[in-house]
């Protein structure tokens, strides 16, 4: 599976032409949550393939159970990417959100990292939507957790929502310095601060 993962990572970098930049930040093998804006089905695989191989091997994407649960998709998601599948709020019957957090904490163990798209669903690429609460609850459970923002540009142009054939563009991934939850921070304050940290990377 390591060879397959390497091939997929190489193909993802080739197709997306991704130019990876670490600004005031650098790859760090410590346990981290990488959070990014979400505009394309390619987002996860491009972000994942842009991490150095050693970090990539321990970075698990958090993905929607309803989309990834069936057949081949599930096989790839689980065996190659070690995806953490969580139920979305719109799933039927409505899931208990605490269960998803438990699931993520368990998946992280002591040294796995997560890749998370806190908007919850793909946007159009113009605005970054408000973050769902999961990021906050996760930090409450693991207060020292490092959150590294990664802004993805142009992936919505390569494979926009609703299209099935990709068109080549050069994309860009900008990582910024890590943030952590502050002791006295409310949920709304924290989520907005995390969102702003991500948006600031857009024009750097």
């Amino acid at each position, binding site marked *: 599976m390591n060879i397959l993962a390497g091939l997929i990572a190489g193909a993802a970098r080739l197709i997306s*032409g991704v*130019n990876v930049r670490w600004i005031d930040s650098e790859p760090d093998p410590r346990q981290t949550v990488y959070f990014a804006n979400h505009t394309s089905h390619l987002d996860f695989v491009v972000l994942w393939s842009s991490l150095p191989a050693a970090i990539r091997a321990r970075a698990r994407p958090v993905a929607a159970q309803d989309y990834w649960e069936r057949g081949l998709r599930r096989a790839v998601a689980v065996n190659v990417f070690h995806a953490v599948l969580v139920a979305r709020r719109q799933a039927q019957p409505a899931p208990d959100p605490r269960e998803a957090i438990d699931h993520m904490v368990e998946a992280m163990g002591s040294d796995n990292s997560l890749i998370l798209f806190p908007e919850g669903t793909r946007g*159009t690429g113009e605005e970054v939507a408000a973050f769902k609460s999961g990021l906050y609850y996760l930090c409450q459970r693991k207060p020292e957790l490092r959150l590294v923002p990664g802004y993805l540009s*142009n992936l919505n*142009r390569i494979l*926009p929502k609703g*299209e099935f*054939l990709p*068109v*080549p*563009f*050069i994309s860009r991934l900008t990582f910024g310095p890590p943030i952590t939850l502050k002791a006295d921070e409310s949920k709304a304050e924290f989520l907005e601060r995390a969102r702003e940290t991500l948006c600031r990377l857009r024009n750097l």
Partner: protein
Amino acid sequence: MKNLDPQLVWAFAGVLGLLAVSSLIGLVLKTAIKKPEAQATISNLNARIGAWWIMSAIFALTLVIGPVGSLVLFGLMSLLALREYVTLLPTRRADHRTLFWAFFIFTPLQYCLIGIQWYGMFAILIPVYAFLFVPTRMAIAGDTGAFLERASTLQWGLMICIYCLSYTPALLMLKIPNYGRPAKLMLYLVLVDQLSDVLQYVWGKLLGRHKIAPVISPNKTWEGFVGGIATATAIGAALWWMTPFSPAVAAAVSLTITCMGFAGGLTMSAIKRDRGVKDYGTLIKGHGGILDRMDSMCFAAPVFFHIVRYFYVR
């Protein structure tokens, strides 16, 4: 190995010698000059030389493989160049399928036409059919915002990145009496054009004082322009033996190649300044993207092709 005619081998031996000498000079500069302000220039120079080794090896390999090798190489370069170009365009969601046609239908088709030697269709596929197809497909997509800007910038990109660039391997279609295989003519064009770029850079770094177009390109100087064009033209004339030209004609043709190349570099730089970027990409270490390297070829190749075709093909 049937493509290895002796003149081609001599020309490549020359390139190899040039690369070796450049690497040596790069090494000497790196060890001899310790001034911190010169470090960036020298390490960029060495990166450029390193990239030249790789580019020359790839080009030599595809030339030895034969026409298919050259067509695949330039076809891929067209795709990569177009990718760099459209990334800078104000495309919209509605342009997705038009872009798909540009990349995956028109680009392969253009190079296939060279492969089957259908000159008549090669010459009009982009300027007639793609030109009319692009706005039609965009109209069908239904988004009228900035319509003319979207359609015309894409048409322009197809002309530069596919049509103009494809004229280089199109030389392989030409049947020149008493000349043999035109592969060495393609090498000649690439040599003169790229040497002109390199020599303009070298003369500019050594003597450059007076900026030629400060708004567009701070690195282009009159000294670089005159020195580079003159030396590249002289080299082009000295290489007359690998062309169907006489020495005097080879000089005139080389002057045309180098001047068109300069025009290409200037024009493609103007686009970069308009879009606020320094380079089109980061694919070639020290050079930038494919379009940063091939900008001069895009302008020189079509003119060179038509000069040869008009005067030397019967």
